[in-house]
């Protein structure tokens, strides 16, 4: 929208910084770039690629659950010639291990923090780049050893087979499971590299948000996306080192014979596991001390993005901006003291269980506040049903389901029954796919014009949303029913139990829906790649949004802004009474005799 008037003062072109004064060649621009936008897009492409891999793994899992031990059509004979095209039980464990690993560590965390965080943080706060561009580049390139280690682990010695939680002693004793030898070591190495990458990234994001906001951009004028990213970075910085430490301990258990997670005198498959002396539960505590906050790491930025999109397309300020921030902060703070709810049936001290139960119950509160505030944002708005908005509403709808089903798990006696059943699988897929992935899709449709300077096709976007939403619910809503029936997760063939045998048809229905969901991504992929080259050109502010990133050219050049951004008001000034336009961007200077405005 070229009618947008820029305030502030245009900078002369030569004052913008190059990359260390280096000549900008292809490698420097697109590969080893230190520009946050290029790094963000690198993260985006890498993670979308891994999203595809993780999806394929999920399809294989669903195939096995719907038609156990049946020959996989087309790919089966190629992949598993020695078993006649069947998935072997060993490979099934690898499948769900890698599905979890890829989706958590290589897709959701890096796509939110790495892709959107990198791309949006400097643009939304008015910085020319990250505080430490080189560190930023390193944080992307540290993902590559992780990519390689995880990929290699799938092909070595049968692949890691201990679940993404990697519980010892199964994971610490190399003869406990086929493939838990070198493959598991590689897996742990991959985890360590992901940890290093996230740590570099999160420290950088925090410094940038604290120190590099444009003049006038006070903390309480930051868009909620940035708040989500900021709190996420804090969570990562505080929680991740614990997992890194635990990972090192498990590595040393495997490689040099320490015994942190191996009890005394343990004998597995007739072979002594070493002197031992440790506690398997210690790993669970350390692991979940990171991995529970990680759930919020996987959700908070998505919540922020949804808030931005929702305010923009409801043409309405976000309902309760500060309470939203305090809710994010509350989730983060409580997120550190609820890790034990993953361990209610693990043999944990029951008194400790009660403590964790109470804190877990309380963490539902900020989530409830956020939900109601989103509903409050829709109330009284003028809702435009663009694709990003549909995804945001879809997010809200799915997040309600995921949040409510979480209460079942929080209640310890009920958890004793539904723990490790498909109920929990349904719950976290509602949060992570229905929640985060929907927000990510919404975010891609929403910020695509900024990233590539072109619009994505709205019609095919809606087709994508419609199919994904329908098939997603078809796959995962029924999982609640399975879970209530006690159907345990991670079983390659549950149907030889009398009690689960009758659930096969339901599983087949779910698998068909899952395949549908996988195929529903084809319009997205085509739309995404074709729009990069063929989409209609987008102006600076195609959505008439108010946040700062829309003031920059699309796509922004080096240094992001061709003027000095100055911030005059809060991020969601839509439909301000008395203005001819229904949005009042952050960067527009108020008229000298403007009526008294509220910020």
């Amino acid at each position, binding site marked *: 929208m070229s009618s947008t008037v820029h305030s502030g003062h245009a900078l002369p072109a030569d004052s913008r910084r190059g990359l260390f004064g280096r000549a900008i060649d292809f490698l420097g621009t697109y590969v080893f770039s230190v520009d946050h936008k290029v790094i963000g897009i690198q993260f985006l492409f890498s993670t979308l690629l891994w999203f595809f891999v993780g999806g394929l793994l999920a399809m294989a899992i669903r195939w096995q659950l719907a038609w156990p031990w049946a020959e996989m059509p087309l790919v089966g004979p190629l992949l598993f010639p020695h078993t006649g095209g069947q998935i072997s039980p060993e490979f099934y464990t690898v499948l769900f291990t890698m599905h979890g690993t890829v989706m958590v560590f290589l897709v959701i965390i890096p796509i939110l923090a790495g892709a959107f965080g990198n791309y949006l943080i400097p643009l939304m706060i008015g910085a020319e780049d990250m505080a430490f561009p080189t560190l930023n580049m390193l944080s992307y390139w540290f993902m590559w050893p992780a990519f390689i280690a995880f990929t290699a682990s799938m092909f070595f010695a049968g692949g890691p087979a201990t679940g993404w939680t990697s519980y010892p002693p199964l994971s610490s004793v190399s003869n406990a499971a086929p493939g838990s030898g070198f493959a598991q070591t590689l897996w742990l190495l991959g985890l360590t590299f992901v940890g290093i990458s996230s740590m570099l990234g999160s420290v950088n994001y925090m410094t940038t948000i604290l120190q590099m906001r444009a003049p006038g951009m006070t903390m309480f004028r930051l868009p909620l996306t940035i708040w989500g990213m900021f709190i996420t970075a*804090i969570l990562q910085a*505080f*929680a991740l080192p*614990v997992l890194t430490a635990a990972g090192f301990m498990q590595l040393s258990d495997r490689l040099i014979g320490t015994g942190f997670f191996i*009890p*005394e*005198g343990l004998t597995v498959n007739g072979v002594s596991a070493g002197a031992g*002396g440790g*506690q398997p*539960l*210690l790993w669970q*505590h350390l692991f979940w*001390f990171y991995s529970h906050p990680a759930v919020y790491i996987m959700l908070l930025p998505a919540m922020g993005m949804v808030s931005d999109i929702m305010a923009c397309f409801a043409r309405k300020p976000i309902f309760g901006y500060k309470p939203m921030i305090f809710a994010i902060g509350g989730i983060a703070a409580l997120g*550190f*003291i609820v*890790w*034990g709810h993953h361990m209610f049936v693990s043999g*944990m*001290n029951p*008194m*400790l269980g009660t403590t964790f139960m109470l804190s877990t119950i309380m963490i539902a509160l900020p989530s409830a506040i956020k939900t109601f505030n989103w509903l409050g944002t829709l109330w009284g708005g003028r809702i435009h049903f663009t694709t990003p908005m549909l995804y945001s509403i879809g997010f809200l709808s799915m997040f309600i389901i995921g949040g409510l089903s979480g209460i079942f798990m929080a209640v310890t006696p009920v958890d004793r029954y539904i723990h490790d059943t498909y109920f929990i699988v349904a719950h976290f897929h509602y949060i992570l796919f229905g929640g985060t992935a929907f927000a990510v899709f919404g975010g891609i449709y929403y910020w695509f014009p900024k990233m590539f300077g072109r619009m994505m096709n709205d019609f095919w976007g809606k087709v994508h949303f419609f199919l994904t939403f329908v098939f997603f619910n078809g796959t995962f809503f029924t999982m609640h029913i399975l879970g209530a029936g006690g159907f345990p997760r991670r079983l390659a063939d549950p149907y030889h139990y009398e009690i689960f045998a009758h659930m096969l048809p339901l599983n087949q229905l779910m698998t068909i829906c899952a395949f549908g969901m996988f195929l529903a991504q084809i319009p997205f992929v085509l739309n995404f790649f074709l729009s990069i080259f063929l989409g209609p050109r987008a102006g600076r502010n195609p959505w008439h949004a108010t946040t700062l990133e829309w003031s920059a050219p699309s796509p922004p050049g080096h240094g992001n802004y061709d003027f000095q951004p100055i911030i005059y008001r809060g991020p969601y000034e839509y439909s301000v009474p008395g203005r001819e336009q229904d949005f009042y961007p952050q960067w527009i200077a108020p008229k000298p005799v403007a009526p008294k405005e509220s910020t």
Partner: protein
Amino acid sequence: MESSSDQTVEKGHDHSNLFFVVFLALCLLTLGSFLTYFEFWNTRVPTASSRLFMMAIAVVKASLVILFFMHLHWEVAWKYVLTIPSLLMATILLLGLVPDIGYRMLDYSTERERFAAHPQEAEEIREAAPEAALMREGKLNIEENSDS
């Protein structure tokens, strides 16, 4: 890196004497905790209070280093924002671990008992010592014990 607003530069000129005093205090405190190593201390002070004493000394030393060497004494409010949450998190982590791992002795399994070297072991070994000494000197009839 801009450092124009760094207040410690202006204030930090004449701290050399103070740093030296802090250094001496740290050395003395180290010596203090090292006292627990000696025989006379061990025999007179209960282990628990000795440990408490050592940890107290460590905390004092740590605060001295943080406050003066790391200049937090002269910094403004941001120091609390950065340090208190991490200390809080660290404490929570430790507290969360204590009931399950630290007190695991209270819920000890027989399996573990069978394999673990448990506290009585040292006593048993000591009791068996005379026998062992005899064996060492070759006076004990080995053949008698050997056919089990």
